[in-house]
């Protein structure tokens, strides 16, 4: 946003603007402009590459077929197994993410005088910055290394859930706080207990914002491959068994990137395009919802 500069055209004022200051201003503008262009170059390059490589390699087979056997180098096959895997693990993650995330969000917003609130808020904030691979490591060590479960969709889903929790906590808290106090008071004045007021009046009023937070959390974990490397391991075959290793879209991209087969690399690009497209769509939805609310 730019304010209009006071004009320095009239005679009396130009004298006060020394050449040194004018030069400084000009150089600053030029430098900022150049740096911005430098920033935009790789950004455009990446966008272009994803679009061109992705669209060029999209076909129906990508979505409904699973990989052919390793010996079959004829090309073709798809990432259906990875799409299903991603969906399954995100769903598993959401169970944990929603329960703890929305629950803690309600705690921070509705019980704000409780002495644990600052601590929970601090930890939720700090947990958002924990690298995804560390989360995967924890789930591996706690569950897989200790032989409680194997490399599986369940383990992967748990890791994704852990990553989602802090995101959902913060967005839920924020959105609940936007519901005016008088709504709560009106509910309580009707002789309804607090839990009914919170769950049946306040939470529905914040519905749109909470859903937005969930969408954002999903789009964040949907692209994570690092934690799944250590928990779900990935799978070259179509599988619906959550107790065994499972494929995922970002994992497929990672693996295919190192593949010697041309057609797999193209599938990697296509899968990347799908991932980015989904993330883009969810951010549009989120922005639309926020605008509607305001």
């Amino acid at each position, binding site marked *: 946003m730019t304010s209009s500069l006071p004009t320095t055209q009239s005679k009396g004022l130009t004298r006060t603007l020394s050449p040194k200051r004018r030069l400084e201003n000009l150089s600053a503008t030029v430098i900022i402009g150049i740096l911005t262009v430098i920033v935009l170059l790789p950004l455009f390059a990446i966008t272009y590459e994803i679009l061109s490589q992705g669209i060029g390699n999209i076909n129906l087979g990508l979505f409904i077929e699973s990989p052919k056997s390793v010996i079959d180098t004829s090309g073709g096959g798809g990432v259906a197994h990875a799409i299903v895997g991603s969906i399954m693990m995100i769903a598993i993650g959401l169970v944990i993410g929603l329960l703890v995330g929305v629950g803690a969000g309600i705690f921070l917003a509705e019980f704000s005088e409780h002495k644990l609130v600052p601590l929970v808020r601090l930890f939720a904030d700090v947990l958002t910055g*924990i690298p995804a691979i560390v989360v995967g490591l924890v789930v591996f060590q706690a569950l897989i290394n200790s032989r409680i479960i194997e490399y599986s969709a369940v383990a992967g889903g748990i890791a994704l859930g852990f990553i989602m929790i802090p995101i959902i906590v913060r967005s839920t808290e924020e959105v609940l706080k936007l519901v005016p106090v008088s709504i709560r008071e009106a509910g309580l004045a009707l002789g309804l207990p607090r839990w009914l007021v919170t769950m049946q009046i306040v939470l529905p009023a914040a519905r749109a914002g909470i859903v937005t937070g969930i969408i954002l959390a999903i789009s964040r974990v949907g692209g994570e491959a690092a934690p799944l490397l250590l928990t779900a391991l990935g799978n070259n075959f179509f599988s619906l068994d959550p107790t065994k290793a499972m494929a995922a879209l970002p994992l497929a991209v990672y693996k295919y990137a190192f593949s010697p087969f041309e057609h797999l690399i193209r599938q990697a690009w296509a899968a990347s395009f799908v991932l980015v497209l989904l993330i883009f769509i969810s951010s549009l939805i989120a922005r639309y919802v926020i605008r509607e609310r305001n």
Partner: protein
Amino acid sequence: MTPSITKPRSRSLSSRSDQTFQAVILGLASMVLLIAGLYAAVLLLGGIPAFAKEGLGFFFGTNWDPVSEEYQAFPFIVGTFVTALGALVIATPLAIASALFVVEYAPKWLAQPVANLVELLAAIPSVVYGLWGLFVMLPIMRSFQTWFVLTFPSLGWAPTGIGLFSAMVLLAIMVIPFISAISRDVIRLVPNDQREAAYALGATKWEVIRYGIFPYARAGILGGVILGLGRAVGETLAVTMVIGNANRIAPNLFAPTATMSSVIASNFNEALGAMVPALIAIGFVLFVFTMIINYVARIIILRLTPQGIRL
């Protein structure tokens, strides 16, 4: 026994049910604390065999040798910090410049699309950046490095493309949108009367930015940069794909090396024996570092942001 205020209704509609509700909510909220504790405990306990075996050598030794089963993590600690700091050195001025451009210089029809593009790029997954890095950036980098090495042959660097410098550049590209978005928000929040007061004194645009905006935005931008550092330190797959995964400290800027996160990602699935606790121990170090960085960022933003700005 005091007379009841009203005829008896179901238990779930009384204040008693509220106590149950509060207990459930408190339980769920405590899970947040428990999970954080779980991270620390699991990583520490899992890594103890490695710490015990090497002692301080784990942190400062440079020998990572599967054959002799000696695992020392110094190269990776160095790798993480050099790549992250290098990336930030490149990214910060670029990010701040683009944020300034969007808020202060660009006309409205340009500002919004550019801002949206930057935001979208902040959301692109790490693997996709890695894919791009591998197939698009590396060939360009190889050409550049070849030219560089031919121009300065006395340095003795090898133009492999893959290595520390590529990781730094890719990481910088990934972190710029993040820092830019935060800086943009911070700069936008500077109250307009600050700008107008400066303009009214006859300041040039640059002077308004320097004296009217920066003092207000400084803390928030610094916080954003530190959060970007945290992000860069934790970045895994994109880095893994272009850094070369050589388990030693890079002898020069173009050489392959590894970071804490890349060594975990690339070795984990085949790790056996003593390597597993070593990798977990590295994970613990990574965990502690990112916790500290995020905590510091939070404090900076909270304590140093002047009145009138709420991030």
